[in-house]
């Protein structure tokens, strides 16, 4: 945050700002000092904001045509696809938008894991992020149920049945969730309501996520604390805005590829068959972004423990700032952590692949090993590594390694004066 008090130039602006300091906020956001070495992995925050707004806008327009009733939902979705003007486009953007949202969020999360962005003093930003991620999964799951196809119906049945694993009250909770004795119309209408609500909860949490970010400021690839503003920072506008904008354009090309050339490749053909409570599809698979957790669920042979393992795999991320004992943030200066990081990436990809395969034979064995390693990484490797690892010395500033340890004072002074 800039030290000086912002005063609007115009008289009307000053009058308004004295009563509601929105212009001060806008000034804070544009002038906001940002580390000048942020790479493209840092552009996914902006991309995710774009994804959220896209989902809300396309979702609102779809809701004008969709009918949340077990007898009409499937047909109303086909009506959107065939009859509604540009309905096909809006629905394909919404359906693929969910996948793009998760693609971006996974890159965002793994960026944080690599550069240690979750560490002190950014734990709250991280935890809010994990809550957003959980809400995203809930919204995506309920959204997938709305077209009332076979995968919708049986996905809803399997996921809600996870709660029946809870001892004693499990069955009662499942009946309560369904509003009946099976997934049926009451389930559909409440899922629609919650699917509509959750994006706005996410929007609120995004505001908190960014607010919490603006207290300590961005982490950066070097992972050291920097003075703000200083020769190590640039104002958010125009420097970061342009960089984020360029990355967003690249991302939209990928997005558009899926929407226009492969709109159904990430979905499942069975969901174009209307829900039938008498027949379960031969092979039930969740959407790709949930597959690693699905693999963990299936790799435990006990029902309750399987559910516990799956939930723990997500919730363990919330306590990550305290499991990682290393004070050094960036993996650039942690030669061993860097290797374990890439093993974890491979492990999660393997779990995702195993989640898509039938749970038997070699697939099951590999899924079990990968599940064990996932927990080993967080519960054993990270705590021990922080205490044992010999890290590379950190530079004193972002500028120091570039200028060979003797910052050109004249240059730095000139830049600083520009910033002020």
């Amino acid at each position, binding site marked *: 945050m800039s030290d000086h008090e912002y005063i609007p130039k115009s008289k009307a602006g000053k009058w308004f700002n004295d009563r509601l300091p929105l212009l001060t906020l806008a000034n804070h956001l544009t002038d906001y000092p940002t580390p000048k070495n942020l790479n493209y992995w840092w552009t996914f925050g902006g991309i995710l904001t774009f994804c959220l707004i896209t989902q809300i806008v396309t979702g609102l327009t779809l809701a004008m045509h969709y009918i949340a009733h077990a007898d009409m939902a499937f047909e109303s979705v086909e009506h959107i696809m065939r009859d509604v003007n540009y309905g096909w486009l809006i629905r394909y953007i919404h359906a693929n938008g969910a996948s793009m949202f998760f693609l971006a969020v996974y890159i965002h999360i793994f960026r944080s894991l690599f550069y240690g962005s979750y560490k002190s003093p950014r734990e709250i930003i991280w935890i809010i992020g994990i809550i957003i991620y959980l809400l995203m999964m809930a919204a995506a799951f309920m959204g997938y149920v709305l077209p009332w196809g076979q995968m919708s119906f049986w996905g809803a049945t399997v996921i809600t049945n996870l709660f029946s694993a809870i001892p004693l009250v499990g069955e009662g909770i499942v009946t309560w969730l369904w509003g009946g004795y099976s997934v*049926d119309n*009451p389930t559909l209408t409440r899922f629609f309501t919650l699917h509509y609500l959750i994006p706005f909860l996410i929007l609120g949490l995004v505001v908190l996520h960014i607010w919490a970010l603006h207290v300590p400021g961005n982490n950066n690839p070097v992972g050291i604390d920097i003075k703000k503003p200083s020769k190590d920072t640039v104002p958010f506008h125009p420097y970061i805005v342009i960089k984020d904008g360029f990355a967003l354009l690249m991302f939209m090309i990928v997005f558009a590829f899926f929407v226009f050339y492969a709109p159904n490749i990430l979905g499942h053909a069975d969901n174009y068959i209307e829900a039938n409570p008498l027949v379960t599809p031969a092979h039930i698979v969740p959407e790709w972004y949930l597959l690693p957790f699905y693999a963990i669920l299936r790799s435990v042979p006990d*029902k309750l423990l399987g559910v516990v393992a799956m939930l723990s795999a997500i919730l363990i991320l919330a306590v990550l700032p305290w499991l990682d004992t290393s004070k050094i943030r960036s993996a650039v200066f942690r030669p061993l952590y860097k290797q374990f990081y890439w093993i974890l990436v491979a492990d999660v990809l393997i779990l995702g692949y195993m989640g898509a395969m039938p749970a038997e034979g070699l697939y099951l064995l590999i899924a079990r090993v990968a599940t064990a390693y996932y927990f080993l990484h967080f519960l054993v490797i990270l705590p021990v590594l922080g205490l044992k690892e010999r890290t590379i010395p950190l530079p004193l500033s972002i500028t120091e390694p570039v200028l060979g340890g003797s910052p050109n004072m004249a240059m730095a002074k000139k830049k600083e004066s520009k910033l002020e």
Partner: protein
Amino acid sequence: MSDKKPERRDFLFTASYAVGAVGVAAVVWPLVDQMNPDASVKALASTEVDVSSLKPGNTITVLWRGKPVFIRRRTQEEIAEARSVKMEDLIHPEKDEDRAKNPEWLVMLGVCTHLGCVPLNDKGDYDGWFCPCHGSHYDTSGRIRKGPAPWNMEVPKYEFVNANTIKIG
């Protein structure tokens, strides 16, 4: 705080919080309970099925409370197989005699007790049912023998109204 003797004011605070909590609970409960099965759902509690056309070795699936119910007319071999199983071999020990009062007729919810899929007929390692979702095997009495499901398929309340009609529920 803890050193101080409780005063009139402490009593008033505690009493106010308690009344407030009761008030909040009274408001929250209707909002939670509205999600439970409503009267119209509960009203559909029983179904009558004509089973006169069912031959031995065949199964029909009917819908009861939105869930599939398997009605199988078992062959003598299937009955013998189900009744010869030792209790200690079962994950969820139940006698076939208790599950099928009339041994020829097996009536049970066609819902896998793992995560609620519909198991496939005449499949699996135990000649009964096999659930394609996560690989649970059931025997000719619908009892879980192998896989992640914790319990046998549930036998609902049912009765023979006459020789040809079963009333479920």
